[in-house]
């Protein structure tokens, strides 16, 4: 009986099996794992899914959470419509 998917990144539809396969291919750090699978590259930019992905990475590679670190949170940390960024400067 096949079970349903365990979604890790719901923004980009990346599940735990896809992460494990990417790790097996050599994505043994968060940044490569993110770039290969696309986790954390969607609308939320990896806010909560990074915890799940890092836990998985830690369990597979044996690296500690601290050593694995975080992905880079660039601005804007919430999506901002272009028209506000194009606003008139006072």
């Amino acid at each position, binding site marked *: 009986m096949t079970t349903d998917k365990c979604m890790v990144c719901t923004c980009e539809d990346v*599940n735990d099996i896809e992460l494990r396969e990417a790790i097996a291919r050599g994505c043994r750090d968060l940044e490569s794992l993110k770039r290969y699978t696309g986790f954390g590259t969607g609308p939320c930019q990896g*806010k909560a899914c990074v915890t799940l992905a890092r836990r998985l990475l830690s369990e597979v590679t044996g690296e500690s959470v601290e050593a694995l670190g975080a992905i880079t949170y660039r601005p804007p940390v919430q999506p901002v419509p272009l028209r506000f960024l194009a606003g008139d*400067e006072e």
Partner: protein
Amino acid sequence: MRSIKYHRPRGYSCGTGKCASCLVRVDGTPNVRACVTPARDGMVVETQNAFPSARRDFFAVVDKVYRRDFDYHEKFIHPRVLTPLYNAVIRRMAGFGKLPDLKPISRSRVRPTIIKREVDVLVVGAGPAGLAAAAAAAEGAATVLLAEEADREGGSLLLHRDVGGRDGTLVAAELLARVRDAGGEVLASSVAFGCYLTDGVGNKMPAPGIVAVLTHERIIEVKAKALVVASGYHETPALFPGNDLPGVMGARAALILLHKHGVLAGQRVALSAPATRHAGEDLAKAGADVVAWGESPVVEAMGGTHVERVRLADGRELRVDCVLYAGDETPRVELLQQCGAPFVASGWVLVPDPSKLPPGVFAAGDVLGASSPLDAMASGEAAGESAAAFARTVRPL
């Protein structure tokens, strides 16, 4: 709505406008987060990424065909003559919302502006920690700007009926009054979206740099002598098959639905962890039937377009329409990371190291690790005092 790759059904999930499970097209604007967008008479709301409807999406076949995984890296290569066709189909499938209508139906006739402000202390987040920090800083004679991204101040206080014996909303109102009485400025629906530590030609600035805040129809570039980040946490999803089904959500998301919006997340609720007990109790008081109290974790959620059943670790299968999870909350450290704050591990998450924050940068409340509203208030009070004291030592900007 339906998800991007697998076209899985999605619905209300985080409740804070952070994830991408409730994106709809509103008045011609795509990718709007329904969970934080107040409904208005006459609003036109359309589903996205589903044909012919979210309930019956033809493309859900992708989820059934690719039962295990879908790796787009080694597909659609052969035969090469089909490359333009592949590209056209993939672009169509991979795109999410449609380009906004050129004349969106918008009530706002105000042209957006960008202004600059200088303050002693900028506090990000008006939950218990942020409110306490802003109050302490303002009472410490600092000029204070408090930015809260939700449309109401209070944060977790709004979700607790017992904070030191009193209703959390009353505690929030009192703290808010203290901030205002001491001359602090409070902006709701205002999100600090970035700490910029370089200028447009590459000159570096010390943290917190320029903090850009998006508020009503304008952006404020804030130059603050001190920044207090009291941004709280993101609920981390639990990992079990079917964890993304509509009706499966974090405990806090269910509390937001109940206490902020007066909506019950479900009638038959399964709790997946003891940490969700508070939410379970409040939902039960509101009339829901809690069929599992977290004594055995959920190992699978099942259903069509909504959760209908769960299987627990002890083997029981229960009929439900709502599943709550909690645990491993992820601190919202984005702004702190931009300021160069280092992190330490705390279980499976990273938290800021409060002793190693750059000068002028302070953190308080759940962003340092999940705590109670009272603890968050104490943490905020201390941070606000320190921030005001620091601001006094800084030369005029």
